[in-house]
């Protein structure tokens, strides 16, 4: 299946066109909503658009429940995964177990050098023209991180396709597309078996490999009750599926979007290139995540209320949302809310962290936040260091999207 397109064919027809036009022009719509209708709703679907309200929604995890459990069960074969849990002892156990083996020190000692090396090799080998989404970012993400996780696909399996489909099913399939479900019903058990096999093989071979899988198995062996410690086979499997299917499809979305936003702003691009050439990774990250503020991962995150909640209590826009409602927390809108973000329409690479909600907040803040913050800028860094970086003339030189996914962006540079 190598060579298959990780993205499904684009939707066609008038509705899809209107949808994609709206999707591309969300910021002014949100601007208007924040001003005149900050908590819009249609039936049982609500949306929070102001910074304060979005923040409250993310932080108030007991009331704003993540709605992921149903589909997660499909993917994980019914084994609970922390992404779908409330703040329970099981949640803390599972997250804690993974934090103990996905260590902060790995980023500096292992992932950053590896990413730098591979990214430079990809760009150096591309000879003056490169497609950013797949050839550069997706490839790098899957190569570097799967090696770190210890997840290797057997011949004939393209994890990029499997993971991206499962990701779409989990996070971007609001209409429950039956054709997607058909694919998921094939890939989800496939991935389960694949990981099960990996675990079995590793245990059998007795090889001592220092990756996430290896560490998990070691922790399992060292623990009298692996289940209680969070390292049973099924827990390890769920975590690895979660990382691969939930995490890896994201950098190929955001890194090209950041590049596109930089290409739109010559000053910002020059600044980012300068930072890349000076090896100032902190400054470079500032440019990349500021660019993303103008086109983040998505417009909003869904939550489901488990009780009646009065949002913005004590203010004039206070509104009570009933139990059971689906509430979309628009972090895209929040990051452009001038009530809390200084000069939101200005590109400023030195913003404080409070201006960003790229990774959500609170209990379900992205598990990979630190890895992403460190690695995403590095995926673009070798490209930014090149002289003469520009769009490829023609439509390929502008970021095309397929649904919420970045599809294609070709840039040129002096080889």
């Amino acid at each position, binding site marked *: 299946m190598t060579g298959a397109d990780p993205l499904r064919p684009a939707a066609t027809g008038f509705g899809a066109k209107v949808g994609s036009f709206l999707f591309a022009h969300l910021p002014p719509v949100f601007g208007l909503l924040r001003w005149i209708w900050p908590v819009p709703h249609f039936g049982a679907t609500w949306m929070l658009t102001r*910074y*304060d309200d979005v*923040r*409250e929604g993310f*932080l*108030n995890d*007991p009331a704003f429940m993540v709605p992921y459990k149903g589909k997660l069960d499909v993917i994980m074969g019914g084994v609970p995964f922390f992404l779908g849990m409330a703040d329970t002892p099981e949640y803390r156990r599972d997250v804690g177990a993974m934090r103990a083996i996905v260590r902060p020190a790995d980023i500096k000692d292992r992932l950053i050098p590896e990413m730098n090396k591979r990214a430079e090799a990809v760009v150096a080998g591309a000879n003056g023209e490169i497609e950013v989404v797949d050839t550069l970012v997706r490839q790098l993400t899957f190569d570097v991180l799967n090696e770190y996780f210890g997840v290797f696909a057997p011949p004939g399996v393209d994890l990029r396709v499997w993971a991206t489909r499962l990701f779409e099913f989990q996070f971007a399939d609001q209409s429950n597309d039956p054709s997607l479900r058909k694919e998921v019903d094939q890939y989800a058990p496939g991935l389960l078996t694949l990981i099960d096999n990996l675990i079995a093989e590793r245990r059998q071979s007795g090889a001592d490999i220092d990756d996430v899988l290896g560490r998990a198995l070691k922790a399992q062996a060292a623990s009298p009750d692996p289940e209680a410690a969070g390292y049973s086979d099924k827990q390890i499997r769920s975590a690895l599926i979660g990382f691969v299917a939930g995490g890896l499809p994201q950098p190929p979305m955001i890194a090209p979007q950041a590049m596109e936003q930089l290409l739109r702003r010559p000053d910002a691009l020059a600044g980012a290139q300068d930072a890349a050439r000076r090896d100032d990774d902190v400054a470079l990250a500032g440019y990349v995540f500021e660019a993303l503020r103008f086109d983040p991962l998505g417009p909003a995150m869904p939550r489901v209320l488990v009780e009646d909640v009065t949002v*913005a*209590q*004590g*203010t004039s826009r206070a509104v009570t949302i009933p139990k059971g409602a689906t509430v979309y927390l628009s972090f895209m809108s929040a990051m452009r809310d*001038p*009530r*809390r*973000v*200084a*000069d939101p329409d200005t590109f400023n690479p*030195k*913003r*404080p*962290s*409070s*201006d960003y909600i790229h990774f959500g907040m*609170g209990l379900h803040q992205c598990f990979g936040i630190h890895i992403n913050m460190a690695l995403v800028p590095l995926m673009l860094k070798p490209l930014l260091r090149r002289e003469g970086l520009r769009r490829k003339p023609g439509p390929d030189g502008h970021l095309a999207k397929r649904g919420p996914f970045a599809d294609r962006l070709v840039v040129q540079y002096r080889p």
Partner: protein
Amino acid sequence: MRQTVLSVVLEVQPASASRLREIIRGIRKAEETVKTDADWYYDRLRHGVPLLQFMSMTVCEDAQFDPVLVIECNFDGAPGPFWAQLENLYSKELRDMLRCCQRPRGKLQALFDHVTAPESRAAIAPFLEAATIWPAVFHIGNRGLPRERSERETALFDYCQKRLDDEPALRSRTATEVHAALRTGALAQFPWLNKPEQPQVSTAENIADWANLIGFLVLAVAVLTVPGLLLRSTFPSWLPALLGILGTVWAGFHLNWMKDPALPGLMGLPNPPVIIFGIGGVALFGAVVSVGADRFLHWSCVSTVGAMICSAGALLAVILAWIDVLETADPSQTAPPLNEQKIRDQIASEDRITQNHMISIVHLKPGVLRAILIRAGLWGLGYFLRLQARDGYLASMRTIHFAHWAFVSNGSRLMFHSNFDGTWESYLDDFIEKAHAGLTLAWSSGVGFPPARFLAFEGATHGLAFKNWARHSMTASQFWFSAYRDLTVNQIERQVLVADGLRTPTLPEVKAADWARRL
């Protein structure tokens, strides 16, 4: 470029005051121990709240009131983003601090409950915004200079100094050539030199400043003349004239000024006795015009104007006399009870960096006239300073970064904050010796202030009494932050001039020499 000066003042549950102080000290301790940058404290706050210039958090005790928590903030831009940045950093601490405060009544209550409820995760910023107390008058030393710009210009200034130190060969060049040499090198490192900066005072702000002052003056004149207009429109012309003259005569009898040695003039105005005579004359003149125009010429328009003039003169005279009567009888506290331990705490916290901070809260004298005059006085002073003190100078001194006065405790107390260069002694001496009038005007309504005359005279000139009074009203802040601990107001302006020079492609020799003197 807009800058905001504000404070949040909340009553504290007395039993929780010491816990509150501990929370605030905890923030300070965390900031002073967590170092991410080799030679800088308060890194988290500096980077996390890039809009912030100066901030203090203080629990102020008072024998007559429950303690209050005062959060004083001076920052760039509008309040919303600032609070979001601060909350992002200190969300837990701020919520715990609010929990030590008394539950406010009125419209703040629902918000307070929401924010302080157990396990609450509601945004704190909306409450802090709603609880904001705006200054009655404020002063900004480096108006329109955001911190971000001062930091850039500091780096540029240091760059220039280093080059001049390291390249003795430049000494044999002309100033124009030195300028060119520095500019060429600086452009590579500081590309912003090629971009225009936002003006320090925008056109809109400029128009607003003038409109405010003119509006204030028009309103003041209206308030003084309207009684004449109303009386004249209902009664015959002799009545307002008679009332005006009676008022002026009453004022004349009650003024004590003739017994005192003449007071000096103020800001180019003649001294008070001359002004008072003049005002009496104006009232009399108005009365004569009003009656004369009505009786003999039958010009009712002119008569009305006369009545208004008479009204203004008489009211002013009455107000001055009333003030004089009040001031003569005012008790002042010649020996405020100085708590040595409190003063020691203040002194121990002072003179650590280039700037110092003071917070003082005083009670206000009673009476309707005082209540009106202190508000109108501070209001007008504020508008006046916006125009007069744009370059940061108050009289001949330029040492204040941010200062403000605000009414607290439902208008019964006056709070003063200042973030200034140099020592507390030198700051007060500056006022005593150079700018006592403005200070006396703002503070002479405070209970116990050294005896003042006509609101603006004497008062602060009583050096020792004034210093004792000021000290005893102060509290050592549990937390105080300066975003640039070695920059004076003067140095920030000096850096602006150096940067401005470097923005210009070439300078002729005379201008270049003038520019080079700043280095």
